[in-house]
């Protein structure tokens, strides 16, 4: 998934996506090696709500309301003045707040490089590895239904 190159927020979207998938424990473990996050105040949340998840799950390709999923969102302002957001697809106040604080720190030029190298890069690598492991396990069980594939195409 490569974001469009003309999107000025592409870089931030990429790290927010990584943070949204990371667990609070993983983030804490990686933050232990970094300079401490600056103090922050909560602007909103962390709070849990529901959003409608839509998917193209029918044969026709139209969007379908799959169901509501729980999301946790949090917005913080760090002492340095950056506002960090996080929205994660599960109930986890701690992870949402940590993700928002890291998002704020990543927007601080003085902290960006250390945070990106020591938190985002390892998290992204671990997530990519998990994705590939799952894809490999799934690929091993794949069955090719040639007749179906022919009919659908």
């Amino acid at each position: 998934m490569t974001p469009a190159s003309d999107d000025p927020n592409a870089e931030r979207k990429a790290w927010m996506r990584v943070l949204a998938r990371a667990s609070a424990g993983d983030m804490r473990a990686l933050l232990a090696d970094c300079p401490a996050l600056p103090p922050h105040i909560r602007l909103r949340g962390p709070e849990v709500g529901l959003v409608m998840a839509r998917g193209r799950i029918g044969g026709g390709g139209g969007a379908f309301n799959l169901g509501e999923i729980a999301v946790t969102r949090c917005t913080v302002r760090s002492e340095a003045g950056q506002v960090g957001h996080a929205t994660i697809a599960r109930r986890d106040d701690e992870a949402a707040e940590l993700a928002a604080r890291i998002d704020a720190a990543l927007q601080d030029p003085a902290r960006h490089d250390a945070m990106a190298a020591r938190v985002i890069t390892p998290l992204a690598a671990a997530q990519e590895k998990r994705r590939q492991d799952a894809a490999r396990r799934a690929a091993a069980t794949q069955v090719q239904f040639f007749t179906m594939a022919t009919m659908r195409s």
Partner: protein
Amino acid sequence: MTVDLPGFADPVGGAQECFRAVLDAMARPGAIRAAACPPPAKLHAATAAVLLTLVDSETSLWIDPALAAATDWVRFHCGPREVEASQADFVLAASLPALDRLRAGTDEGPDESATVILQVADFAAGQRLRLAGPGLRAPATLDVDGLPTGFLAAWEANHALFPRGVDLILCARDRLACLPRSVRIEKG
């Protein structure tokens, strides 16, 4: 969008406290109650608190262009549907809008009327209003600095619609007072 102010320090407690203040003030027209949260540019503390308490994604709001600087804050914390004044559940205004243009509800559904959140300068000076009606054993007085000269006539027309009509929540700094449609207002 840059919003860098929190809402209520304690979202649930703060909203309940402010709701109680609005309820009390609505039940006793002219009574002044306290309500506050850190306000964004252009809004007073009480106005911001009332918005956080009453407005959310299930309500519709019209924002006075004079208060447009607060729009981002309102979207971030309240997330209302933004509509024309004539359609809105809540009307946020810095000067009295034309009350007869707002939703007045119907005889079957008087609760479908609009509520005006009007930010005024002060409750200690300005026009003296003499209030009478439900909730008041004896007539009360309320000083409001920030109502236009034609207010009494506009209110007369609004009061005459009862049970239809709009309700007013007046906010000044960290104080609020209410004028429900049931109250009669005379020059004090």
